[in-house]
């Protein structure tokens, strides 16, 4: 599970590690975004360092999507600062973010389902050969490279010609992660990569998050599952109603506290009170706020922890 730092991507590592040290790759300072008169996000601070996983947690509508859209170049921030390598930036297209080494793996739109795996892998960055009028795709090299990269990530596919839509959700995420790593991403944004996945598939994806981190990438891991976040995360930011509710490094917060913040303990208590006024709902079985420290009915059963136990424990 660990790398010695001299893996296949020496180039990437030498790029990032020397200057990397502790200086952040991407930094948001008091950043915010308004759509017309709707303030979707405000006062957000976020730091992404090489070789670290920064987890962004939050319920639906908390502003997670807006946050990653700013960092990935789909939207522009309207307040605060957005710095890459310490320099203020403002991306107008995802391409500009990619050129800075910021790659995003989207939950649902990472791939074109009907296209073969290898074409998806190189989509938008195709390799070509030959002079202009007959410049054509270098299909052999692309297939070989895609196969090598996927195998390095531990994914073995029989047929790279099969449409990527025939792969499982986890496999597709892994292809997208492998693709981002291959194209020299320094910062990897993962938009709820485990949301639609089963237990085992989630484990596989978490493993690749750890693998990407060990290669020296800065990872922004967006999720609403605190268990998944805690397995690989170095820093945790919880968003609620468009602003930061919690920002803490791993040694400052326990899984229980994280779960509690995520579950919205105060809101649940209010909900219980409301339900109590509805006849027929037995609220005695519902937890009190003080009980919420334990992982209540949370979908991260034992098996998922196994494949990622290594990286999880490894973190100091």
């Amino acid at each position: 599970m660990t790398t010695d730092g001299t893996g296949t991507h020496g180039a990437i590592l030498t790029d990032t590690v020397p200057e990397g040290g502790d200086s952040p790759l991407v930094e948001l300072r008091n950043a915010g975004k308004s759509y017309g008169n709707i303030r979707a996000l405000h006062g957000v601070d976020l730091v992404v360092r090489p070789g670290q996983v920064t987890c962004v947690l939050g319920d639906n509508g908390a502003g997670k999507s807006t946050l990653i859209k700013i960092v990935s170049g789909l939207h522009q921030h309207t307040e605060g600062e957005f710095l890459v390598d310490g320099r203020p930036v403002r991306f107008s297209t995802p391409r500009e973010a990619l050129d800075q080494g910021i790659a995003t793996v989207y939950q649902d739109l990472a791939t074109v389902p009907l296209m073969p795996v290898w074409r998806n892998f190189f989509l938008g960055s195709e390799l070509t050969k030959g002079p202009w009028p007959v410049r054509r795709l270098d299909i052999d090299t692309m297939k070989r490279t895609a196969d090598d990269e996927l195998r390095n990530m531990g994914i073995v596919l029989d047929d790279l010609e099969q449409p990527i839509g025939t792969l499982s959700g986890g496999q597709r995420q892994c292809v997208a992660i492998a693709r981002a790593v291959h194209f020299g991403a320094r910062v990897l944004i993962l938009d709820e990569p485990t949301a639609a996945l089963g237990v085992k598939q989630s484990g596989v994806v978490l493993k690749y998050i750890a693998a990407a981190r060990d290669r020296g990438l800065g990872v922004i891991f967006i999720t609403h599952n605190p268990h998944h976040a805690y397995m690989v995360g170095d820093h945790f930011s919880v968003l609620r109603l468009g602003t930061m509710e919690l920002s803490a490094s791993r040694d400052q917060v326990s899984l229980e506290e994280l779960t509690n913040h995520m579950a919205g303990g105060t809101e649940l208590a209010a909900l219980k009170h409301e339900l109590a006024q509805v006849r027929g709902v037995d609220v005695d079985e519902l937890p009190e706020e003080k009980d919420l420290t334990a992982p209540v009915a949370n979908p991260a059963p034992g098996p998922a922890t196994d494949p990622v136990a290594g990286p999880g424990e490894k973190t100091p």
Partner: protein
Amino acid sequence: MSMTHHAEPAVTTPPAPGRKESDGRTKQRPLALRLLARPEVGVFLGAVAVYVFFLIAAPPVRDGSSMANILYQSSTIGIMALPVALLMIGGEFDLSAGVAVITSALTASMLSYQLTMNVWVGVVVALLVSLGIGFLNGWMVVRTGLPSFLITLGTFLILQGVNLAVTKLITTNVATDDISDMDGFGQAKKIFASSFDVGGVQVKITIVYWLVFAALATWVLLRTKYGNWVFAVGGNKESARAVGVPVTFTKISLFMLVGFGAWFVGMHQLFTFNTVQSGEGVGQELIYISAAVIGGCLLTGGAGSAIGPVFGAFMFGMVQQGIVYAGWNPDWFKAFLGVMLLGAVLINLWVQRTATRR
């Protein structure tokens, strides 16, 4: 790009397995079934069936010159069906394709005639007009995000009206004046509408263009960056944009490609008949779209080929001429087309399901 360092394999846990190893969950299906699953093969079989049918039903079809005639008919549909098919793979429609052909021919014809200039001036201006219409279609679709069905329905109606009204305004007639005695006509006719002799049979040059364009389109689709982008913008526009594919450029250029096709066919018609009927072209756009769909292009985009529409257009040309050779009432043509379209789509569906189920 950083793709040259693969010296050290395996970074993650499972040691990189040998190249030949597979996960053993997919079984290779027999070649015949895999071939049948390709939509081009289905339409090829359909084309053969229609051909054999008319060989039996209409004895004159067996003649070489009849075949040349059928292929000619197919080529005039096929040349337009190609860009329409590419556009469809790219996820868009162009309902104005039929009348755009006439617009292009009218522009070239009236411009050279009214200003008594060399016909090449008209030809070049017509090309610019056609590309402009394509650009406008594409630009409006990309900018508004509205379905191209609506946008091009609008262009279709506009062009249909403009064709008739402007022609009547300028020539006080529904057709343009004969330009066959003008400078450069012979030269242009040689390029757009000549024929050559093959073993005693006169073969129209459009057949050659048709097949060359089809080969070119196939190469572009399967072997170039641009082709990759066409599949991507049709398959999932948002994904394509997110990984850096120039979606706007790809879509607009596809619409302009349809404009180019309309110009080419328009010039062919102009230099074949010397004059243009301004009310024509209505309904042709559906023939082009049908040929592309019969040829296995997915109506919703993202899948298809350039070879399929060649057979699709051949089926149409075959039926159109076959009915005449069989001595039937040509009014049956459209009914026949409808049956063929439904039949082809159903057979394609059935064949693909059977073949992919193994």
